């Protein structure tokens, strides 16, 4: 009996040893690759561009964006993205970063809103748009800070709840709402991992990594683009840039992701 028992033990040890040593390197080579890409992210090249654009006198009014108020006072950028979206008395609206950028580009610089919206999302493989570079630069000024969206104005409460409603609203021939793809852990479409957004950690990953370098597009992409692209895949009509629907969703996302440390640019496939 003791012999048989020790024989079993030896077998067990062998099995365990083999299992433990099977993968010589990391057992998640994709993670290794992603880490490399995250450490040397081409998106960073657009931060300088955004900074230049921010201070440059541009548009029919030949003015810079230095007086743009993102909620902390004119020109105050440190921590600005971290508290967006929020209510703005001058426009009587809840606005996210990109819609506020559009407001300033129109009011301070005299650009035409439709022109901005038309070029905001740049073609893949291009040099990127001014909006993309600016959104990245301004958000980079919140790097290292925690997402800190607060709800106090009634419109902020309204936007949050509307965003939640939209997150779960199923429609179209796919019967999809956001939750169909983003409601469970460890899910993926083909080889693209899906963030688990009914989970705090998942939401935090989402809200802390946009704007991001989209590898396959070779440009920086923003949250407005990300939402638009989801609706495209869902076979639904096109989401209007910086619309209330988009801001409602972003309000819901950012508030749910509160507490996460912002780190942009993110790196997406």
């Amino acid at each position, binding site marked *: 009996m003791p012999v048989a028992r020790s024989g079993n033990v030896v077998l067990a040890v062998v099995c365990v040893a083999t299992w433990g040593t099977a993968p010589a390197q990391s057992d998640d080579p994709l993670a290794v690759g992603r880490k490399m890409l995250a450490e040397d992210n081409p998106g960073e090249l657009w931060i300088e561009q955004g900074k230049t654009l921010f201070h440059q006198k541009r548009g029919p009014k030949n003015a810079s964006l230095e007086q743009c108020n993102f909620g902390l006072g004119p020109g105050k950028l440190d921590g600005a993205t971290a508290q967006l979206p929020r209510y703005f008395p001058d426009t009587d609206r809840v606005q996210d970063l990109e819609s506020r950028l559009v407001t300033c580009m129109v009011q301070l610089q005299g650009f035409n809103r439709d022109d901005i919206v038309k070029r905001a999302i740049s073609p893949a493989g291009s040099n990127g748009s001014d909006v993309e570079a600016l959104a990245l630069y301004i958000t980079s000024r919140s790097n290292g800070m925690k997402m800190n969206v607060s709800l106090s104005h009634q419109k902020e409460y309204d936007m949050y709840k509307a965003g939640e409603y939209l997150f779960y609203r199923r429609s179209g021939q796919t019967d999809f709402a956001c939750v169909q793809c983003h409601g469970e852990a460890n899910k993926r479409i*083909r080889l693209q991992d899906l963030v688990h957004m009914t989970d705090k950690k998942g939401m935090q990953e989402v809200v802390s990594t946009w704007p991001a370098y989209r590898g396959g597009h070779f440009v920086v992409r923003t949250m407005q683009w990300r939402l638009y692209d989801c609706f495209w895949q869902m076979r639904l009509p096109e989401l209007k840039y910086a619309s209330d629907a988009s801001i409602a969703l972003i309000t819901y996302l950012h508030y749910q992701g509160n507490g996460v440390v912002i780190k942009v640019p993110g790196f997406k496939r």
Partner: protein
Amino acid sequence: MRKAGLRWVVAGVPALIAVGCATFPDPATTRQIAEKMVSEDFTAPTPALLKRLEQDRSQRICSRIGDAKLTQEEAAEVVRLARASIQYPASGKLVGDWKAGNTLAHDGAGDRLQGGRLEKRKENGGLCQNCHALAPGEINVGNVGPSLTGYGLQRGNSEAIAKLTYERIYNAWAYFPCSNMPRLGATRHLTPEQIAHLVAFLIDPASPVNKR
């Protein structure tokens, strides 16, 4: 000092009032606010395509916030509506050509709206590979839905299985009310003939799905 205190109180009172009044809107108000956004904040090449955002009764029931549960009545209604929606191919043949189904199952394109245009191809892709594992050994497959590898091996290819499979693809909600799976036939994303090809792809012993 007292003056400063008074000023603080005066400033604080409106702030307190503002904070006190602001609250989460109730579900009916939320719905009103959000549906207004849905009606105003999207574009499509034609009004007909804009209608994709309209919800049918089942979608309304199945849009539940958080982990709100379906009631028995709601589930029964969704199943009833789903069953009633099922249409079969005109030929009566529920099992088509698995080779055509193979192509369809791996096709994730078709019918999307971008830049004011509709992506119209010969036919809409089945989208299956996006969410389901199919033939064994394929790496580039999703896992949002259960694996379909060996589907026919496990169930056989009887008429009953063909009918069940056809119906589950045509309208998954007839079996699983509010399932994450699109009601591909009922929403007209796929035609009955296309679904018959997918049925063959799943149950035909010669199909790659059933390769040992």
